[in-house]
């Protein structure tokens, strides 16, 4: 019975998880290492890597500041409408990526609210880098806040209150008392946020305009190569993203083992 259940579970995971993962690297290297290296050092691929890194470098710090502010307000104070606020923070998780991109087109696109004014000022947001950054920020808004809120709630307010009573100001309290307590959860949120920021496809696809070498992120570059039937190159670029996913999972495992002591925290995590 026991081994039958293990066998069945592992067969399912093999079919839907392990084989797809392995196939990415297999297809990437099938035509040899030269083709692989050529695909990821192609100028268009390099510019896609740069844009992906740029978008993540803007989106992750902004959402980090947001996550800390939101978690401080929600976890350390009691106020009305708190549950509604938590639901609103979660909202981007439940919106389809395509819709996330579309709403920015409705505001900044040529036919959008600010479109005509932006055109006069010669500012391009949609089909340009700012649109990609905005869409990336939108889809990654909840990640860090969601990790920090349950963690900071579980830790209560006594330590911070003691610090304030002893004469520390707000920033000192945060940096010397709160931050050390939540550092692993914070790191975990940053890792997840970064993975999603670099991997987002649907939302970015709507606002990007797919201009090679200029508004193409790594996932969009994968799509272009694939649609050109350049499968080896598509999988080569995809393998970079798969490696990023594996590094993310490895870091997650490390952070979780650091957090083992905090049961309430791991219980809260449902993985959305």
């Amino acid at each position, binding site marked *: 019975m026991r081994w039958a*259940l*293990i066998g069945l*579970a592992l067969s*399912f*995971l093999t079919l839907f*998880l392990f*084989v*797809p993962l392995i*196939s990415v690297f297999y297809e990437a290297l099938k035509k040899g290492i030269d083709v692989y290296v050529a695909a990821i050092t192609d100028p268009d691929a390099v510019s896609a890597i740069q844009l992906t890194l740029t978008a993540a470098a803007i989106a992750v710090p902004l959402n980090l*500041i*947001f996550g800390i*502010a939101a978690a401080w*307000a929600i976890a*350390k*104070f*009691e106020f*009305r409408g708190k549950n509604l606020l938590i*639901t609103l923070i979660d*909202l981007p998780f*439940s*919106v*389809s*990526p*395509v*819709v996330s991109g*579309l*709403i920015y087109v*409705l505001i900044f*696109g040529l*036919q*959008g609210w600010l479109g005509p004014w932006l055109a006069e000022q010669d500012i391009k947001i949609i089909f340009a880098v700012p649109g990609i950054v905005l869409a990336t*920020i939108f889809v990654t808004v909840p990640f860090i806040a969601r990790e920090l809120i349950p963690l900071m709630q579980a830790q209560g307010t006594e330590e*911070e*209150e003691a610090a*304030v009573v002893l004469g520390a100001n*707000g920033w000192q*309290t945060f940096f010397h008392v709160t931050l050390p307590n939540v550092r692993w959860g914070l790191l975990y949120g940053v890792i*997840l946020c970064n993975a999603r920021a*670099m*991997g*987002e*496809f*649907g939302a970015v*696809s*709507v606002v990007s305009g797919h201009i090679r070498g200029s508004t193409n992120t790594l*996932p*969009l570059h*994968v*799509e272009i190569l694939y649609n050109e039937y350049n*499968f080896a190159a598509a*999988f080569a670029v*995809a393998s970079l*993203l798969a490696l990023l996913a*594996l590094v993310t*999972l490895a870091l*997650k*495992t490390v952070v979780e083992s650091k957090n083992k002591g905090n049961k309430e925290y*791991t219980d809260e995590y*449902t*993985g959305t």
Partner: protein
Amino acid sequence: MHTFKQHSVLPGFNLALGFTLLYLSLIVLIPLSAAFIRTASLTWAEFWDVVTTPRVLASYRLTFGASFAAALVNAVFGLLVAWVLVRYRFPGKKLVDALVDLPFALPTAVAGIALTALYAGNGWIGQFFEPLGIKIAFTPLGVFVALTFIGLPFVVRTVQPVLEDIEAELEEAAATLGANRLQTFSRIIFPTLFPALITGFALAFARAIGEYGSVIFIAGNMPMISEITPLLIITKLEQYDYTGATALAVVMLIISFVMLLIINLLQWWSRRRRASA
């Protein structure tokens, strides 16, 4: 409590909440409201016509049908995987546990092309189905495969902590009182797990409905047959039919909000059940 906020000696509330609300409004709430405001320019009849054309209705059927089937498969196998991970020891267990989250971490476009290559007629997995006359890639079945992949971690990760918390004493007591293993599972374990299982199912279903990246590669995207609703939004956008695209987006947003509400209620129920257990 008559005041908005309870008194606290801690500083920074106004700054933190003010920044949170400003950021959320600028990035999330105002842009989302744009979709509703744009659609308000349509009359109700016009809106209804746009969101119920035969092609759109076919896309709803596929999106919801495939999402439901995928979430159902994930409920069954997710429960099984969670059970195996919590109750049994086997070599490589830690690695398997870590890899369950792969669909969260792997960009959807990568999942899409990998699954397409595997389940195509000449792919590693598709070649076994081809002789049986079953085509997976470029059919609605392919959509189901992609959505199963995307939703895989949800049930595992909601059921796992509840299963870890079930006390061995409870099962031992049941066994002592003469229950066999099937009775213990169906009378003791399953009722305790049920709220978490349903929550995981709802999360997987909600995620699948909006999914785009992994599906478009494997679906084949034939109108009326294998075209999902999010793709239809893109198609309308590419034809500069902004109003049509937005009307469909509003339908999807309303569905997302309803799902979010249901999931919140389920999580609340699940927590209460665990607190009283």
